[in-house]
């Protein structure tokens, strides 16, 4: 009986590079590498020839030249005398601002809509279905343009909020009032919201020309500290529960720890809201042309934020719904059999398991929100695409450098988000041995 041992160790022949599977993969890889290098070399040669023909070079020195354009929403100080590099960072921070805000809002909307769509309530379930299907089957760009048009066309002019002499004489109110406890004014020029103001701020210092606000740092430190103490309290309560079987009442301790320190800090700093209003002349007549005080949010920001969060909220709602439906009915029934009420069943049994299914699509939605924030370009929101890939590109004429830098920054953002969220995903995922 012939035994088949290892493959025959004959002499190496050249044809084995093609016919022998052990060597073929090497051949293929060498050929692919050769083709790839040839392709890249061809691109680079073309690039060189094109640059020579246009008498251009590749240089990033323009980042240190004066930008010369204004950006209306700036999270770090910027004037039109600043450099293109600084404009890049202003744009980057604007991208981050609208993306982070939209991620939070979309999660909120999505989780609510996803849970409500599964509700036994007929009318609410149907309404949520209509919301999800209508908003996700129509292009995002339409929602952005529509939101912007509504703000710019439908909202009242600032002068409609004014109190005139005649109104004072006849005891009338102005035609439009501020909403939300008389604090927010939406006009066709912008949305005026109250601004947090400190009477006795701690001051700030400059790092790389960016002011770091000490008061904000202090508030963050106090809040983090409170959360840490609270987690210690809960941990000790849990230890007692494991020991004795009784859980000590902790809610008032938690409440105290979470609320008192930050309130004390804010009181010490003299915190209050500055509400946008017209300057008031004698006997209550408004003066000036627009609101003073508060923060004026440009419509480009508000519209982009609203459209992104409502549009991506539908995708998150579908992810949440799919996640909850993926948990078998037996889990709910088992929880009911143990005597749990529906709310606690949802919080303690269904959601923790559903989270494993929900988190991966959630990550990709966060990535999509960040990437889709570039659509703000259609309504002149000056994010990274608007500054570096828009005005800077057009002014300096350096398409190659601007586009490459911008793509790399977006790539970096995406990779950062996906790495961070994957760490989170690993922490909630089922621990298997």
């Amino acid at each position: 009986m012939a035994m088949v041992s290892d493959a025959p160790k004959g002499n190496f022949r050249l044809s084995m590079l093609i016919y022998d599977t052990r060597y073929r993969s090497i051949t293929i890889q060498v050929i692919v590498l050769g083709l790839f290098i040839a392709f890249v070399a061809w691109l680079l040669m073309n690039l060189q020839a094109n640059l020579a023909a246009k008498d251009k070079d590749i240089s990033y020195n323009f980042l240190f030249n004066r930008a010369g354009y204004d950006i209306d929403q700036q999270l770090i100080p910027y004037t039109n005398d600043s450099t293109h590099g600084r404009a890049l960072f202003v744009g980057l921070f604007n991208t981050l601002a609208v993306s982070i805000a939209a991620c939070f809002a979309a999660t909120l909307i999505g989780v609510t809509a996803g849970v409500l769509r599964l509700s036994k309530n007929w009318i609410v379930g149907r309404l949520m279905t209509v919301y999800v299907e209508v908003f996700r089957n129509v292009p995002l760009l339409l929602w952005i343009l529509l939101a912007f048009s509504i703000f710019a066309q439908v909202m009242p002019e600032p002068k409609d909020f004014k109190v005139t002499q005649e109104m004072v004489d006849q005891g009338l109110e102005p035609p439009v009032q501020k909403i939300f406890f008389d604090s927010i004014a939406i006009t066709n020029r912008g949305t005026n919201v109250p601004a947090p103001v400190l009477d006795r701020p701690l001051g700030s210092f400059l790092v790389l020309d960016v002011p770091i606000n000490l008061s904000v740092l202090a508030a963050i430190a106090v809040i983090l500290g409170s959360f840490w103490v609270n987690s210690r309290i809960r941990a000790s309560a849990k230890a007692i529960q494991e020991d004795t079987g009784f859980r000590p009442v902790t809610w008032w301790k938690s409440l105290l720890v979470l609320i008192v320190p930050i309130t004390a800090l804010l009181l010490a700093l003299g915190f209050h809201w500055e509400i946008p209003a017209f300057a008031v002349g004698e006997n209550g007549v408004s003066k000036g042309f627009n609101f003073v005080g508060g923060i004026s949010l440009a419509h480009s920001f508000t519209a982009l934020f609203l459209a992104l969060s409502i549009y991506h909220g539908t995708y998150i709602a579908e992810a949440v719904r799919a996640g909850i439906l993926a948990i078998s009915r037996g889990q709910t029934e088992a929880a009911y059999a143990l005597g749990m009420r529906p709310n606690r069943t949802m919080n303690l049994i269904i959601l923790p398991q559903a989270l494993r299914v929900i988190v991966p699509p959630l990550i990709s939605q966060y990535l999509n929100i960040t990437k889709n924030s570039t659509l703000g370009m259609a309504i002149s929101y000056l994010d990274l695409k608007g500054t570096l890939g828009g005005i800077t590109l057009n002014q300096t004429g350096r398409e190659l450098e601007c586009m490459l830098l911008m793509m790399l920054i977006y790539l970096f953002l995406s990779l950062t988000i996906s790495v961070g969220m994957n760490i989170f995903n690993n922490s909630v995922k089922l621990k298997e041995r």
Partner: protein
Amino acid sequence: MSNSHFVRTQMLPAQKPPVGETGVIKWMRENLFSSWFNAILTFIGMWAVYSLVSSSAPWFLNGVWTASSVDECRAIIAASAGEGASGACWAMINERWHQFMFGFFDREEYWRPLLAFALLFVALSPVLYFNLRRPTMIMVGGAGAVLVLLLWAVGTDGWHLSLAAAVMAALAALAWFAPKHLLWVTLAFPATAFFLLWGGSVWAPIGVMAGFGIAVLVWRALNGFIGVAPAALIAALVAFIWWGLVQSFVTEAMSQALPYFSLPAEDSDRFGGFLLSFVIGVSAISASLPIGILLALGRRSDMFLIKTLSVGFIEFVRGVPLITMLFTASLLLQYFLPPQTNFDLILRVIILVSLFASAYIAEVIRGGLAALPRGQQEAADSLGLDYWQAQRLIIMPQALKVAIPGIVSSFIGLFKDTTLVALVGLADPLQGITKVVKADIAWKAAYWEPFIFVGAIFFIFCFSMSRYSMYLEQKLKTDHH
């Protein structure tokens, strides 16, 4: 003892259930008012529906369909519904729908995009129902009937109407007698659609297709001797030589010799509206499917270099926004091509969008591949199938089936994203065409009508596609849970 005992000898008739346990009341108690929280939700929901309907219904009901300007619309509304009433001015859509649909094509050329659209369904039919007579026949016949109706509705002249009807009738006959051979229509569709849409001489698209034909012949000839991949490589080289060096002379000579078959050439800036969306969407998704399959296989490959290149490409493309790809098409591509090559912006956009979509399709297909048990690959190996045979006969049919919903939703996403081409200056239906229409002083004040019209059309297409993919998913499901 008194005989006061009573024993019932007959059964009582069944009583009616309590009022609260039947019919509408029971349904309402269970579905609307099962708890106080639900009752609150119900009232909030009813209030939301009421406020939505009451605020928008008059606007829709007062809509005016025939007028020559927004001012005239307003005058009609004021006359019929009273001073200060608001209403939609659908007259704008009535007057300009053809621009939203066909961009800037001449009216007498509308039969070309419509015929191409109908041929798209003919080309799809053998892909969806290979060699099944009835469904392909229904699809081809249905496309033909709808095409004739549409052609009649846009007022095509009799000669082109009968030409289109004859073409569709011939294809229906083909579907009936030899449904297998419809696949040739699918293969010829890209060139046919290009010829119908862009026009010009018929020999240029034929020349391009001939390159593919030559490649297939070379591959067939070499496949038996040197294996699949090397043969494909050489075939691709030969095809590139044909396209790069030989083709232009041949097509030139042919169009000199036989100059009869040609359509008026359409410039790319005449493309717009949903025509543009469909051209970009359909060509990008069909180009991205094969590339995506190759990338997905590359990502799962054992070969380090191939895997690295695939992962690098997929992750790079998925990490950057589509807009940057579009701007690459409009600004950057010219730097990386030989000097003085200058081709059409739509074509550049299609290339970049295809590359963009292929990265997403690759991930969808990788998901399908991952869902297959390893035993399938091992079974194929034990039968002695080589890599490509195993992929073609065992792995891909199953993986693609699992991936269908993902592919359809990628296509829906891509179709919606075609509106972004407005940002590089093409006339998409949403922004580009709306701008053109509103440049007319008569329609300047129409803000909401274009949004609603374009949004409704997108909704109809995307919603029906997503429902179709859900139906397909149910139908193709072969497991038992």
